[in-house]
């Protein structure tokens, strides 16, 4: 079956340098640096990445950061709570626009 996404492609991520090495190198350096222990722990960063992966709905990222958070000792509850954070922000972003709708409604209503 042909699909747009192939799990095997995740392992080939590094190959993007074949077409543009300089920018790929800069990206992977930056990426590696970003996820190092810092003011935030690598574990916290991994949970943020998992939440963001669900926001951008990238199957590769979901796969990668499910494994990464598990390796970093997060459990299923913590991982699902991270997804809920993403979901809450997404739904909140829709709902907060309800104020705009209400403003317009009130503007047009007697």
């Amino acid at each position: 079956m042909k699909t747009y996404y192939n799990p095997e492609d995740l392992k080939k991520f590094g190959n993007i340098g074949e077409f543009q090495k300089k920018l790929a190198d800069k990206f992977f350096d930056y990426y590696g640096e970003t996820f190092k222990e810092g003011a935030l722990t690598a574990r916290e960063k991994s949970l943020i990445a998992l939440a963001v992966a669900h926001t951008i709905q990238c199957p590769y990222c979901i796969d990668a950061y499910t494994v990464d958070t598990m390796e970093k000792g997060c459990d299923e509850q913590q991982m699902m709570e991270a997804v809920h954070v993403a979901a809450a922000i997404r739904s909140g972003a829709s709902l907060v626009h309800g104020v705009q709708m209400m403003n317009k409604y009130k503007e047009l209503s007697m």
Partner: protein
Amino acid sequence: MIKSLKARHSQLADVGYELKILSQKTPTGFEPDAFSSKLRESNLFPLQPTKIDTLQINVGKMCNQTCKHCHVDAGPDRKEIMTRETMQQCLDVIQNNSFTTVDMTGGAPEMNPNFRWFVEEIRAISKEIKIIVRCNLTIIVANPSYHDLPDFFKKHNVEVVSSLPYFSAMRTDAQRGEGVFEKSIRALKMLNDVGYGKEGTGLILDLVYNPSGAFLPGNQESLEFEFKKKLKEPFGISFNKLFAITNLPISRFLDYLISSGNYDGYMEKLIASYNPVAAEGVMCRNMISVGWDGHLYDCDFNQMLEMKVETPGQHIAQWNNNDLHRREIQVNQHCFGCTAGAGSSCGGATTS
């Protein structure tokens, strides 16, 4: 409780079959001699000992638990245990050598009827030698005759290394069996109560973390930080160090990998994570592992694959320092488990 692979007459109880699987080229393309090739690239082949400072003794396969990942295929249905005569042969070797550490494992070592005698005899040989017992925790609360184990360990200054795969019941019980987490917490409290894991007592209680599934352990320090926090807050438990150990693809963990469809992916991950620095520090370079029947192996994993030391004498009764120091350590694809990432050994990560 699940039965051992042996009691289930599983094909994987046959070491020849296990080695056949480990030697097969996988669809993702790893070669049958992949580990030797990697060692060659790192100028470590043939792998040889540095110094032999640790004697690890497996006193038997009998255990009160049947953990899903157990590389020993231990369980209540396993009857192979070390006799007093073989223990005496171990004591003779300990007496005539200068090991820094005697590391006792199993099964549940405490279930060997001569366990306490053995510990007392080792301590009688040397006050300084580090005696480690790999305690599964639940044995301490299994029945009243084991309740005084914390006091016994304390009396003989035994270091306790205990498996606790996670700080929650769900993930712990998934790997080690229903109710294991609650019993482990009770046992940890009993160890804490006599001073184990407490600052200033000198009584060492280390925990072993190994992943409950087909993934690798993360950074040992971060996991230790998390475990300390999560065991302190609700349970008031303290411990010294956390050892993050990678599950090796043998016995019941191999069974899990194959039946869950994770074998190829896991092997691929182990191989991709090969770290030459970890390879240099593998534990088989400074230890000898003794089986329940007295045979000698490079490590507990090789023991379970029945890959004996490659020396003329292969039994504790035939101990020969020169031969053992000059031997070539037996390797196969399971060894990738000890060289992945930060490395893995019975003492946790092998690189900092």
